[in-house]
């Protein structure tokens, strides 16, 4: 492999590690309840990590000859990078360490997940050879990163406001969100673990062999042989390419998420939401509400420009139609409609505060759905991806 490509890979690892340190330092600073040296170091480490990631991005660009935003690995790492950029800027205005912790955790998970997708530098097929592609993808990612801040603020608001004494629906919803985030982390840990030991399992079907990087619980219905003792044939209606493989991934993520959740609860001895609440307790909730709204107000125009307008200009040139109702496009439209609804619903009496915060959480779920699940579920489980 080329030296540049190896160096750029190391820079990404360096960034990842800096972000991990960033989480530790910001958490520490939050626990000390002061704005001091630790906080400044935390910001500095995160910024250094960001510079490293920028280096990764630029070197990969030089090496591949095109802006590295053209496959899922590249796009997700870029999105993670935008999240950190937005965090670094927002932190200049609103110095809440927990906001930084949220952003770093989500960003790390996204970059970690990205690394599970094929990382080879791929040549661009003709339709992707357009400057509008770069402009579209980078602006869309930036917009989504700004919108994500409303999720961070909203989630903190919810943690702050929810009465943990009463175990009602809301309390369990918080736990579910935490478990979901842990599932992503669990998947990442599993993948790293099995990759370190070089585990692969080859499942033979009637006309193909599928290589699993994780133990194959779920196998295609026409499986002939599998090296793993437990197996479940995937339901008949999922017959898309790699449907079993994807279901296997989803299953193992959720499983590992549950294991992590139980482990953590074993140490905290109470609901994770309840364990986190004291950290959030002193944050000014009006400010959190303001930050949430503000990030939608700033992010919505950027998202519109990047994910819709620039995308349409590109699609018009590349495919002679600016809109084709393909699932990814449609979900960008749904995201947009949702945030438009957020802005209006907030104007109604009684919809600021906790309800807005929940809306912001849903909004981020839609963004994540479009990032991952549309590829994983909608397009993937269908026959013709």
């Amino acid at each position, binding site marked *: 492999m080329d030296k540049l490509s190896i160096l750029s890979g190391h820079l990404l690892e360096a960034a990842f590690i800096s972000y991990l340190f960033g989480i530790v330092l910001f958490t520490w600073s939050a626990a000390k309840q002061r704005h001091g040296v630790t906080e400044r170091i935390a910001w500095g480490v995160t910024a250094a990590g960001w510079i490293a990631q920028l280096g990764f991005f630029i070197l990969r660009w030089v090496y591949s000859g095109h802006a590295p935003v053209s496959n899922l690995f590249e796009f997700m790492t870029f999105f993670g990078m935008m999240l950190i950029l937005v965090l670094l800027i927002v932190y200049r205005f609103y110095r809440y360490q927990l906001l930084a912790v949220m952003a770093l955790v989500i960003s790390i998970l996204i970059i970690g997940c990205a690394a599970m997708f*094929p990382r080879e530098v791929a040549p661009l097929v003709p339709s992707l050879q357009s400057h509008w592609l770069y402009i579209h993808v980078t602006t869309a990612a930036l917009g989504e990163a700004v919108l994500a801040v409303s999720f961070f603020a909203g989630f903190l608001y919810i943690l702050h406001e929810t009465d943990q004494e009463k175990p009602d629906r809301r309390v369990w919803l918080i736990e579910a969100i935490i478990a979901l985030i842990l599932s992503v982390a669990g998947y990442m840990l599993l993948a790293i673990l099995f990759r370190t030991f070089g585990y692969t399992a080859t499942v033979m079907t009637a006309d193909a062999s599928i290589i699993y990087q994780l133990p194959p619980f779920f196998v295609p219905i026409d499986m002939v042989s599998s090296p793993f003792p437990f197996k479940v044939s995937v339901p008949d209606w999922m017959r898309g390419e790699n449907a079993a493989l994807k279901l296997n991934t989803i299953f193992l993520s959720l499983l590992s998420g549950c294991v992590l959740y139980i482990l953590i609860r074993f140490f905290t001895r109470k609901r994770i939401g309840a364990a986190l609440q004291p950290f959030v307790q002193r944050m000014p909730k009006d400010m959190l509400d303001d930050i949430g709204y503000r990030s939608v107000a700033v992010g919505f125009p950027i998202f519109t420009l990047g994910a819709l307008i620039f995308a349409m200009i590109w699609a018009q040139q590349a495919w002679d139609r600016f809109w084709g109702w393909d699932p990814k496009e449609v979900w960008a439209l*749904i995201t947009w409609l949702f945030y438009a609804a957020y802005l209006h619903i907030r104007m109604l009496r009684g919809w600021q505060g906790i309800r807005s915060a929940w809306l912001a959480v849903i909004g981020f779920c839609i963004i994540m759905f479009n990032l991952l699940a549309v590829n994983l579920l909608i397009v993937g489980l269908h026959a013709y991806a």
Partner: protein
Amino acid sequence: MQKCSICKHENNLDSERCHNCGNVLIEKLDMRYEGADRRSQQRTQTIIDKIWRFFASVRNGMYILLLVLLITAIGTILPQRAYIPIGRTPQEFYESEYGVFGSLYLDLGFDQLYSSWWYMTLLGLLGASILIASIDRFFPLYRALKLQPVKRKKHFLIRQVYVRYKEISNQERLLKQIRGRGYRIRQNGEDYLAEKNRFARWGPYVNHIGLLLVLLAAFLRLFPYFYQDEFVWIRDGETAVVPDTDQSLFIKNEQFSVDTYENDDPKFEAAIEQEGRSIPKSFSTDIIVYKAEDHIAGETPDLDVLNQMTVSVNHPGKAAGFTIYQSGYQLNEFSSLTLRTENEEGVTADFKIDTENPQADYELDNGLQAKLVDYYPDYQLDGDKIITATKFPRNPGFVFDISEDNHTERLFIAIDEAVSKTGTNNYSVRAVDYDTHNVTGLSVKRDLTLPVFLLGGLIFMIGLIQGLYWQHRRIWLQRQADGSYLIAGHTNKHTSSFEREMDRIFDICDKGESS
């Protein structure tokens, strides 16, 4: 008069506490429309009023918006009809791939959701809602903001988000501070009104106009005058007429070419190996566009060269008001097939079939006669039935009746296949040679709605930024009887940063005074 919410005592409008029980009375005013009267709030209730009121409500508008959102999402559960594989019928596809749910999806029309009349109707309702809600608010708001007095009633001021009573010793410095932050100040006697960024209030109305333009453009697309969408397949070296242009526009495909990435390019080796085949680098066609002189039907028209160019993916060309896009191709289509027949004595004779216009009868030198019964340009087996997947000669199959004197034998013949259908095998027929050609697929479009879409998008963006990146802020300074000032502030959003701004203004003034 205002009633205390606890003891029901009637108090003065501008009292801050209840005279009877001491309860704090002040509730913030809803300043969104400055308390202006709106048509939708009037009492008269004709049917028009009711419709108006329905669409003017943001709550109802949001119901419509969320309904659109939900239905749009449902359309992605299964692939839309436009994305099902070529050659499969919708009935068969949805049924066999997704079972009962698939059939239901098809029956309910979700397979063509986004062009269905009811989806369009829903978008129309959304448009109506945007339009009516905006008109309902814009004019009253405009008037209220234009006619703002500097002096305001006390009960108005004390119900703003920011209220302070302050001694102001150095008025000049304060006003300079406020002015320095971009406010414009009006004075009436000893009272002041400082205001900035009023234009931000019009942002929503501007962006809604942009949205309505986009919806209008989508509507205009339904008319062929604004939107014409043609597609031509042209073989290398041939000329084709663009459909629906009154036989006036012709395109010649001089040469179609595909370029692929080098398989041993060290940069891309790994990715290409994973893909398992070469990855295309470019698709392009050298074309000549002709305009036909008006001509008599049936005759070959005289063609005048309009334009000569290369179109490729991402680089469309323009001619005669149309935009020409490279949007499909087919390599190695069969232009002709040469079949060799053998009669009972073993004498052979060849004949060539043109796949575009196959002859009906062929008289052969060995005395045989071949009569074309059926032709499948792109044959496929569907169970035990032969069908054609497309109308392009990608995999031609023929059914011939081969006869000599009074014996006839029916045969199915394709490139690598010859099956007798009558069971007898007196004659043999097989393909011995073929010619191929490449075909380019060009999409020829005239879309006069594009500028409207673009303009709508532009106006939408301007309105968004105008409304969301600036805030309308006002500060009232009202002199009280004792010489101190009642200071009230209003912002249309981001209250906490407004409070920060206000505190900073007074901080700086106070500090200035102490030093």
